[in-house]
């Protein structure tokens, strides 16, 4: 049994088909990446898994349980979290409040404090800035906060929607090294990236999404070598 099994997932916006029956698996402790061009349906996939948008067909199984139809907060309660596209930190809340919100469903104060220390360990910068309104953080800091906030929930599966978007190469490197660290600590990662190069290097396996269908799959390194992918997503010429 895979940690996450997506079967024949369909999503429509109004009459427009965004996902036309995609299937993929994420095994426990893996890093899996979905790559694809703009509008391929990557964000739609993650939003459907989180129950933010209704699905038109298919199933989303997590540890053998059906997720589709559940409210978002129930899904979060099962240990599935999303770092949304565009960071979406709460600008009117402080860094610390944002982090505490990440642990909203955690009742045990001691666990929350322990998680907070762990996140501060990964992102010392957030500790320095804990009093600052998140809206005034830099883009990189906001992304760290978005990831840290998701980790506060102590997730089993963390999904990230383009965590490297708009960040300087050095910050991208930092974020990805954190992703690996988090994964080594036992958290399964489902990663969406425009930056297919880094994503495929980091991931155990990858899926290529093309206008609502999965067109290719394989180990990250293999996809990285693939001629078609090199041309389409890595900007290499033949």
């Amino acid at each position: 049994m895979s940690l996450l099994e997506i079967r024949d997932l369909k999503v429509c916006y109004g009459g427009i088909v965004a996902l036309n029956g995609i299937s993929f698996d994420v095994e426990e402790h893996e890093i899996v990446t979905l790559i694809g061009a703009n509008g391929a349906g990557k964000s739609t996939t993650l939003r459907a898994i989180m129950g933010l948008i209704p699905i038109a067909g298919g199933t989303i199984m997590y540890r053998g349980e059906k997720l589709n139809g559940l409210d978002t907060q129930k899904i979060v309660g099962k240990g599935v979290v999303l770092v949304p596209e565009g960071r979406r930190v709460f600008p009117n809340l402080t860094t610390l409040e944002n982090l505490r919100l990440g642990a909203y469903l955690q009742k045990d104060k001691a666990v929350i404090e322990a998680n907070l220390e762990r996140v501060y360990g990964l992102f010392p910068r957030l500790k320095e800035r804990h009093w600052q309104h998140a809206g005034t953080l830099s883009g990189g800091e906001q992304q760290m906060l978005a990831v840290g906030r998701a980790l506060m929930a102590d997730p089993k599966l963390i999904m990230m929607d383009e965590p490297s978007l708009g960040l300087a190469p050095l910050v991208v490197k930092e974020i990805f090294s954190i992703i690996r660290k988090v994964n080594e600590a036992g958290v399964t990662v489902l990663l969406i990236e425009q930056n297919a190069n880094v994503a495929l290097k980091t991931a155990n396996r990858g899926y290529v999404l093309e206008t609502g269908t999965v067109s290719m799959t394989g180990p990250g390194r293999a996809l990285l070598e693939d001629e078609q992918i090199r041309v389409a997503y890595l900007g290499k010429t033949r």
Partner: protein
Amino acid sequence: MSITTILQHSLTGISLGGAYGLIAIGYTLVYGILRLINFAHGDIFMMAGYFMIFSLASFPWPIAIGITLLITVLMGIAIERVAYKPLRSSPRMSIMISAIGVSYLLQNLATYLFTAIPRGYPEIPLLKRIFRVGELSASLVTLLTPVLTIVLVALLMILVNKTKTGMAMRAASKDFETAKLMGININRVITVTFAIGSLLAGIGSILYFTDRMSVTPFSGTLPGLKCFVAAVFGGIGNIPGAVIGGFFIGIVETLLVALGYSTFSDAFTFVLLIVMLLVKPTGLFGEKTMEKV
């Protein structure tokens, strides 16, 4: 006009303003979360007036107050569930129109049930007890209203800024979807918001009508509009702003009446609205419209 008279009127104005402030909070809270102007809020305040009339007919006043507030809160929550929740993802205009519909519905329901003849508002003797300082005199309710308003606002600010529920409310006011991703139950946050708004409208109603003597099905309309203006004046979405707006309108209105301009006292509110929208649309303490991302 003598100093005593001015002070006397100011006292009345401050008290009226306190009641306005409590009602204005309801507008501002609901707007903050749903970006909805809850046009039915003034009518909830009016209904609370009737609830008090009927519960005080059968129960001693402390219990009657409890019953009135409870029913008012339940009504506020029910209105949101029935009339607003199904429209939450519709264009904002739909839910606004629904709110106007609920407002008329409540007025007509009250007319049907209680007739349009003004009903005497019962007196709670304790609240009506007169205090004198020198030549000034005021009933307990006049003195109590502003104090209670400030205490309630302080409690509300603590709730919003220091508790987990408050944090969830602030998060939801910026971004529903991301709030959901934190595990926040948005429906619960909205219910709590309507409950608080209705509770304060209920308290405001008791304080306001105790000084006014009677209730009609239309008693909520004008105070409702004025409190909406108070909320806009203070910067809609901003809690202390709404209260300051309430005090300001209550005081100016009372002083205008005292000066013999009673015909203009209501118009003043709306002049204030227009001027405010022209000069500083975000209100006194409103934040720059940060788009909901």
